[in-house]
């Protein structure tokens, strides 16, 4: 509430003394001024009608000192407390090219060899920092390629910020196993953002984890779910480990032998929504499991909701389950931990893979599941190499035909876990174009904006094909289906399929990074080829490319000497190349060719940045806040003359994203207790830090002030500490 002037005067003295204490408490770190946001040197923001549809900045590619494009994508992307972006890839899912040449150095044969040798440090030197303020990249060392006598490849790890802002990486790839199979790594690596260094914890996890999910507990511990095993290729580990940063210890649990864990719940029947939108039930005869990269969320009362969605459930091709679970972690007097399980509500459709999930910023405790693949784990579904799908039909005998026959499809649905009612609901055609056409998506992201809108972005109509370039901006509206309206934004220019990232930046923009349409291939000399397509006969092949999509058979392999030029051309106009399919007919894929990896960064500027009027600024913010305790910020460039003008103050936890899920982000709307006009153009806002440590665990948050029109400030980095 804005207080009346006479009343305020009464409190003047006390407030002043409070203000002194407050000023003493903050450090100079936060007086360094505004970050360089969209400065003159920054790429221009492209898009019509930015006020409603936002716009896109395309950042210069990362190049070496000779101007050559550097082959660094970002499979694992995190915002650091200093506002920089940590880009982690490890071996990056690449194959190896074996190039045989004749005496004159001409290629005689190019063979694609399965995987790379990930114990070679050079193979793993793919780590970088990106500074969204300056647009500059910086190569940084990767962790050692061998650690505790095992290879140490962060590709396919899980990650989450610890309370001190360092990023904990659990697992990854142990090795590329012949036959395109994967093994999990047992490694733990911590990126220390202040020292800019990698650390280990003096030991390893008990289980290998390729595709684990890391979920924070209120006390700063991290639960590490799932993942594929170490030394047992392509097998799901039915275990969890809980990392305690205070002791550097890991607590291990085999869920197979824990009563009522998903692994001990029999599924005899499940409900699903058929493609015509009708609910059906089917019989089943399996025991449930927890996916790879499971989508798991803390609940307000300190349990963990296992939603059933994730990223693959090998060897279960189809996870025929509606079940969701609540897991509790309890500490025994001895200090040992216990875990227990109970059933949560049933979902209305079966679980999916490679959709995204997000904690609803408008209804804390609620969880939203968006998009994803139904009825297969095969991310190649839909790719033309599996049989070009036209008008919903694939060629006879093709793999896509088989998948379509199993009702494999990408969904446009939004599912909601209502934490009050403890029930699930579904809105089947939620993801849609502005003219109401359902627009299913896989490999999509959902980034929470400070104004509590959600930007669902990236991905495609298939996981690795037919990208959707237009983000959907979701605005909370209880009268709309799924409680959100959607609006298509201006399109990006680059396709972002598998392994893409989307992160809220401290300046309110959204980083859009990476994308893997296929497996790239590395030559022993370090060159990485992205002009690569899967080939039915030869495993992988250099793509036969053409700029003439109308002429069958016009595709040609890019000559090695022209490869860098091809890259330059591609990034100048990503829609100019088309690939010839290996169907024997010279058919040209009707959609533009997508390189195996996308290396260029784009930043989306959401419409709220273009709201009329000055951008408010948080002049002073506390360095730390404590759960449930009062604190203050001082804001400027805002005019608060009545209650309805006071705007809002939020804390958005730093994002850390991989495989269509941001493990870090959560948004707390802070109760404003008081707004004091300082009559110097600034206002002091009294607020209460988030009460609920389960939903808002300790760690670094971006604190945004938004004016009453919803225009956000640039965030101050604030560390939330346990009470």
């Amino acid at each position, binding site marked *: 509430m804005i207080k009346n002037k006479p009343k305020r005067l009464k409190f003047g003295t006390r407030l002043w003394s409070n203000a002194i204490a407050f000023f003493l408490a903050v450090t100079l770190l936060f007086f360094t001024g505004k970050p360089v946001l969209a400065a003159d040197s920054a790429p221009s923001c492209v898009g019509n009608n930015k006020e409603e549809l936002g716009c896109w900045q395309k950042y210069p590619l990362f190049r070496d000192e000779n101007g050559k494009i550097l082959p660094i994508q970002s499979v694992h992307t995190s915002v650091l407390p200093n506002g920089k972006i940590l880009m982690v890839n490890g071996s990056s899912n690449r194959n190896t090219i074996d190039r045989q040449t004749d005496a004159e150095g001409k290629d005689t044969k190019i063979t694609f060899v399965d995987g790379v040798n990930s114990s070679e440090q050079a193979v793993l030197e793919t780590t970088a920092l990106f500074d969204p303020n300056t647009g500059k990249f910086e190569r940084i060392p990767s962790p050692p390629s061998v650690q505790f006598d095992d290879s140490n490849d962060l590709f396919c790890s899980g990650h989450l910020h610890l309370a001190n802002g360092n990023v904990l990486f659990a697992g990854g790839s142990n090795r590329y196993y012949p036959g395109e199979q994967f093994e999990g790594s047992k490694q733990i690596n911590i990126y220390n953002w202040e020292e800019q260094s990698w650390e280990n914890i003096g030991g390893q996890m008990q289980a290998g984890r390729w595709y684990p999910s890391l979920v924070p507990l209120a006390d700063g511990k991290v639960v590490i779910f799932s993942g594929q095993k170490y030394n047992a290729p392509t097998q799901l580990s039915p275990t969890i480990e809980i990392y305690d940063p205070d002791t550097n210890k890991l607590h291990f649990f085999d869920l197979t032998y824990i009563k009522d864990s998903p692994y*001990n719940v029999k599924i005899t029947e499940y409900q699903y929504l058929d493609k015509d939108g009708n609910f059906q039930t089917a019989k089943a*005869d399996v025991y449930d499991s927890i996916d790879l990269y499971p989508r798991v969320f803390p609940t307000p009362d300190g349990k963990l909701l296992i939603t059933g969605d994730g990223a693959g459930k090998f*060897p279960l091709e189809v996870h025929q389950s509606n079940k969701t679970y609540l897991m509790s972690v309890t500490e025994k007097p001895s200090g040992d931990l216990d875990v227990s399980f109970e059933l949560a509500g049933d979902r209305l459709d079966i679980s999916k893979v490679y959709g995204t999930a997000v904690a609803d910023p408008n209804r804390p405790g609620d969880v939203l599941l968006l998009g994803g693949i139904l009825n297969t784990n095969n991310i190649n579904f839909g790719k033309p190499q599996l049989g070009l799908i036209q008008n919903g039909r694939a060629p006879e005998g093709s793999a896509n035909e088989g998948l379509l026959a199993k009702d494999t499809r990408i969904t446009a649905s939004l599912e909601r876990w209502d934490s009050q009612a403890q029930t699930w609901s579904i809105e089947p055609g939620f993801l849609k174009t502005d003219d109401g056409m359902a627009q299913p998506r896989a490999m999509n992201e959902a980034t929470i904006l400070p104004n509590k809108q959600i930007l669902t972005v990236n991905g495609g109509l298939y996981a690795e094909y037919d990208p959707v370039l237009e983000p959907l901006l979701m605005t909370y509206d209880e009268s709309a289906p799924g409680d959100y309206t959607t609006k298509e934004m201006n399109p990006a220019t680059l396709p972002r399929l598998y392994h893409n990232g989307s992160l809220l930046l401290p300046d309110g923009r959204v980083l859009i990074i990476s994308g893997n349409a296929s497996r790239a291939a590395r030559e022993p000399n370090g060159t990485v080829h992205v002009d690569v397509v899967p080939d039915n006969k030869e495993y992988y092949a250099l793509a036969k490319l053409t700029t003439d999509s109308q002429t069958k058979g016009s595709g040609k392999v890019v000559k090695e000497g022209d490869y860098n030029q091809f890259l330059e051309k591609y990034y100048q106009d990503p829609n100019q190349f088309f690939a010839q399919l290996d169907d024997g007919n010279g058919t040209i894929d009707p959609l533009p060719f997508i390189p195996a990896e996308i290396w260029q960064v784009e930043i989306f500027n959401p419409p709220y940045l273009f709201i009329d009027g000055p951008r408010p600024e948080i002049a002073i913010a506390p360095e730390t806040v404590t759960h449930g305790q009062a604190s203050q910020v001082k804001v400027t460039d805002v005019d608060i003359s009545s209650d309805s003008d006071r705007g809002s103050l939020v804390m958005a936890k730093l994002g850390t994203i991989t495989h269509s899920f941001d493990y870090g982000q959560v948004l707390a709307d802070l109760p404003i207790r008081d707004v004091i006009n300082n009559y110097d153009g600034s206002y002091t806002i009294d607020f209460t830090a988030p009460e609920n440590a389960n939903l808002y665990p300790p760690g670094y948050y971006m604190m945004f002030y938004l004016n009453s029109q919803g225009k956000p400030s640039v965030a101050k980095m604030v560390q939330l500490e346990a009470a």
Partner: protein
Amino acid sequence: MALSETDLKNLPNDGQGVDPENPGEYKILLGDLQGNILTGHGRDHAVHLFIKFKSGKEADAKTWVQTFGRKYVTSAQLQSDEACQYRDNEIGGSVFTNFFLSIKGYEYFGIAPYQMPGSQPFRYGMKNESVKNYLGDPPVDTWDVGLQQEIHALILMADDEIVELLQDVNKVSQSLFQVAEIVQREDGFILRNSNNKPIEHFGFADGVSQPLFLKRAIDNARQYEGNFDKWDPRAPLGLVLEKDRTGKTDDSYGSYLVYRKLEQDVKGFREDRQALATTVGVGYDLAGALTVGRFEDGTPVVDSKTPEGSTSTNNFNYADDPAEFGLDPKPTKCPFHAHIRKTNPRGDTGRVNSSTDFDKSLEVERSHRIARRGISYGERDLNQNPQVGSGLLFLCFQANLENQFNFMQGGWANQNNFVAVNVGLDPIIGQPAGTKGNQTWPQTWGDPNTQEVDYDFTTWVKLKGGEYFFTPSLSSLRTIADRALPIDLSTSLEFDGQTGHITLDDDRVFDLTNSFTLEAWVKFSSESQLSGVQRIFAKPDAYGFGLNGKRIRFTTYNHKDYDTTEVTALGDGKWHHLAVVLDGNNHASFYVDGQFLEGITGNTPADQTSSTCQIGVGQQNHSSNLIEYWKGNLADVRLWNCIRSEQEIQDNMSCRLTGYESGLAGYWPLEHGKGSVAQDNTQNANYGLIRGNVSWDVVAGPVIPCS
């Protein structure tokens, strides 16, 4: 002390292998583990009964399983003891028997999921769509009709004597009738070539390379294979053993069994092999060897281009084929796709480009090994070319289905890109049927410049059905009804009073001085047998229990004979229960048929000795002379390391104990009716060897209700 994780992970006995003749720390394990897992049963004939228990008969079915588990199922220890008896004394054993449960079996018996075997494929079953897709298996409706049914359990019975085997199978089948249906039966036999070597229907030596766990097998391998410098067949117990969560001992383990009925189209294979030979331009022998990786006689093709060209059939690897692996290796002797190279790459995964460490890769590879226990079915005439109705009943044991059989089939044999890109599927077992092979074949064996010839070999093996099973521990089977069952005295051991007796393993559990109890059921066909001293149970120079005429005698050797008054009822030709309790004050209490007879005071406990215990005979003090032979029948001999009250004795004298009752130190029901080994049903597994003139007495005897 229970076996540790390390015990299971490392080679047992520092690489010497487990020796059941001297089991040491593995004793409890071997007594509780079913046979056939650590080493094959080796019998020439086997019958497999696939069981579906009847709904509504769960309690009766449990009783049946508990009884079957006691009377038939062969422990690893018994398997070894009987094998010894056969080798050393040519004494035949009982019919070898396994009992396996499927997930449906565990569910039928209402076992809580968290106590069931945890393997995901096991819990899904082999008919599950995802499992089937992973393995590339044909649709269930093409399987044998019986194997399409829900299957709860599998019984395996095997013997060299087919008549005896079939008699026992009939007996078991009849006993099952009330509680279960036999939905499928398979009759298997060892197929042998003209050299009497076990082969499969395509004509190749089978079962050559196996993981070895037991000392005897390892010693044999060393003798025949030389050293293990190129391939070490030894394996840790953890390769095949998985903790049995329903077991009752500290070392209760089981193993997952994969069962697959694999029909072999012999005609198709032979014709394809001939066509391959013609196309590639190699002989028929070599063509066969390039598909299998061995010649018919077992000679590895990587070592020789002709049969009989190698001294060893297992001490080899592929390190030199090709000489340089590089990025794109091309073997010239044994193709990557060859069956035994696909399913046991002997280090290839450590030589390919993506390997991060050779030794670790090899170790991982070795962890996928399975213990194969298959047996042929169908046609016996090697000159025939059957297309249907013949094949292999493929059985294998492992600790981890996903990582062993399933991985071998789905991650190796079925993978075109294993161990390198486009090497093709395993031509023998690669699935699914109809997958294009991509195999290429070297035209000139061993020539680094050889031409490679494309030829798609067809898979001539077809799955006709199968299931995943778990092999429960004996203690879990013997307690499945969760209660003791009525005693059945129709089978007992009859001793001749001259030479017949049983010697037991030495064990510290017998080192009792007082506060213990001995019990047995006894029967004499005539009063004349009740003369002189005769012993039921004796530990020389320590204690002995028996009769002196019609008096019950308990002896603390060198100290006191506790003789009761005469028990005249013993002469009535009926079964009587005798018990003695030596309490902490060294007073002895005697019970007949559960009734207190009398108490006799004493002063001295039994001496602490390390002598070997016996049933049915005593021993002269301070000598090894056996005296005081038993002259009648004995059954259900029990030794407790505690004082049993009159009530307790009454309560369970008529019950066939499970063997895992608290305080029970030794329990010999003497109910098997066959063989020369007296099993101890406690976890101590102190089996006895039956010696001299002893016969199994199988008559219509009383079944005494268990209160």
